[in-house]
């Protein structure tokens, strides 16, 4: 059967993750939450350690810890420390504690690199089910809440006046972020998840006129990077996760250069 081929499974896994990560990544970019995504992703390694100790499923452990981390940061923000300081502390603390905790797990052979940079070629059928289940859930959440999310991203008071609670929408994003981290850990690893969120969105920005087009273009770019990266990694025998991020970055360079040229060749329209 087709799914027996590890390359096909890898392509499907990468596509699923990219489809969910890219539109969510747009919100991460618009709301300037890049570091927030990093902190949530880095906490995942602690989730890996916990799920090994408690011998629960990796997905559940990572999801729980990422969610707790994201909620904790949301609650702590605006209480004494600037957001970037707070995230700088928590992101690296979570990674460090996670790595230390993993070293305590004895008797289990752990491929630490696999969790740090991912191991997409080892995606199993069960992983595929989890990845696509999680990705569809994130896409469902985002499209269900889309107008409310967009309004609260623009301005919280504007949302209030329209009867939308921006705190609840923030929670939707937090939950989606934890879900994406949990399904992406196998594909690109904790160090590179944030790249999969942000780079496709940033790549889509120069040629998008509306938020919806930017989200769709980001999804397409994410899928292209994932599959292109897979092919390139196979051909040049390079690590897959980092290769995917390299391809995405090349696409980013192309569109931002094209965008800069377009702005220069076409003078800004006059005000009136």
């Amino acid at each position, binding site marked *: 059967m087709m799914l027996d081929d590890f390359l096909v499974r890898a392509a499907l896994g990468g596509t699923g993750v990219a489809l969910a990560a890219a539109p969510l990544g747009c919100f991460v970019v618009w709301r300037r939450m890049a570091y927030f995504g990093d902190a949530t992703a880095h906490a995942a390694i602690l989730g890996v350690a916990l799920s090994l100790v408690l011998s629960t499923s990796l997905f559940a452990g990572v999801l729980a810890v990422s969610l707790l981390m994201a909620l904790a940061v949301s609650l702590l923000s605006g209480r004494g420390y600037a957001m970037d300081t707070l995230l700088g502390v928590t992101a690296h603390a979570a990674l460090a504690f996670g790595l230390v905790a993993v070293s305590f797990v004895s008797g289990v052979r752990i491929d630490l690199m696999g969790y740090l940079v991912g191991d997409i070629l080892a995606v199993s059928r069960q992983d595929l089910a989890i990845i696509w289940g999680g990705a569809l859930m994130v896409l469902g959440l985002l499209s269900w809440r889309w107008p409310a999310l967009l309004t609260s991203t623009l301005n919280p008071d504007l949302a209030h006046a329209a009867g939308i609670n921006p705190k609840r929408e923030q929670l939707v994003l937090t939950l989606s972020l934890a879900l994406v981290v949990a399904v992406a850990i196998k594909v690109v690893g904790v160090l590179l998840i944030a790249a999969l969120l942000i780079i496709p969105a940033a790549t889509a920005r120069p040629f998008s006129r509306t*938020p919806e087009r930017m989200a769709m273009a980001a999804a397409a770019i994410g899928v292209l990077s994932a599959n292109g990266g897979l092919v390139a990694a196979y051909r040049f025998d390079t690590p897959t996760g980092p290769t995917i991020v390299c391809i995405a970055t090349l696409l980013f360079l192309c569109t931002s250069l094209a965008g800069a040229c377009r702005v220069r060749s076409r003078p800004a329209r006059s005000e009136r």
Partner: protein
Amino acid sequence: MPLLTLSDVGVTRRGNIILEGIDLSLEQNELVTIVGPNGSGKTTLLRVIIGALAPSQGRVSHDASLSIGYVPQRLHIDPTLPMTVARFMALPQRHSSDAVRRALEQADAAGLADRQMAGLSGGQFQRVLLARALLTSPDLLILDEANQGLDHRGTAEFYRQLARVKRELGCGVLMVSHELHVVMRASDRVVCLNGRICCQGPPDTVAGSSAYRDLLGVDERDAVAFYRHDHAPEEALS
């Protein structure tokens, strides 16, 4: 029946009293302006009214079906967020393109629909914000220093627009402003705020009251200028 009533509303934040003992009601077809020095709680009061902030005491009561159109003080759109005027108008609910065109015309922003929000001038941006607030045919229109970024002339134009919109929709209008002279002429009622309501009433009465002068430091010269403007021909408002 008033559109909205505040009874004994107070807001305390970190031990500081920001608002206290606010009793205020807004009527249909009435243009009310809140004036007051910086830090007098004007924006806080508006945030309580739109439901963004729960009052520490007292209550805000209105009909469950009251629809509010809100024009924020300033709206920063992150440069990473692409947004055409037409798309912005459709947030959070989509409306027919006819309704969008009508609202843009009402706010004197016709022809801007395809432009990017980031490329608009201050005045255009403000008119688009007003158009968006008008889309739902609100019962109550709330504007927080909506004249920021407009020069004196632009402000006067904007307020004439507001008076016209109020007449057309028959809605209540509540706004906060610094531009005293213009405000005074456009408003049905002026409320002086400084943590509490110092005085309120028709513009002439309030302008003549000592509480208003003490609060805003209006000296004789300003008052003369104000009265001279007041005797100007009426067509400015129509």
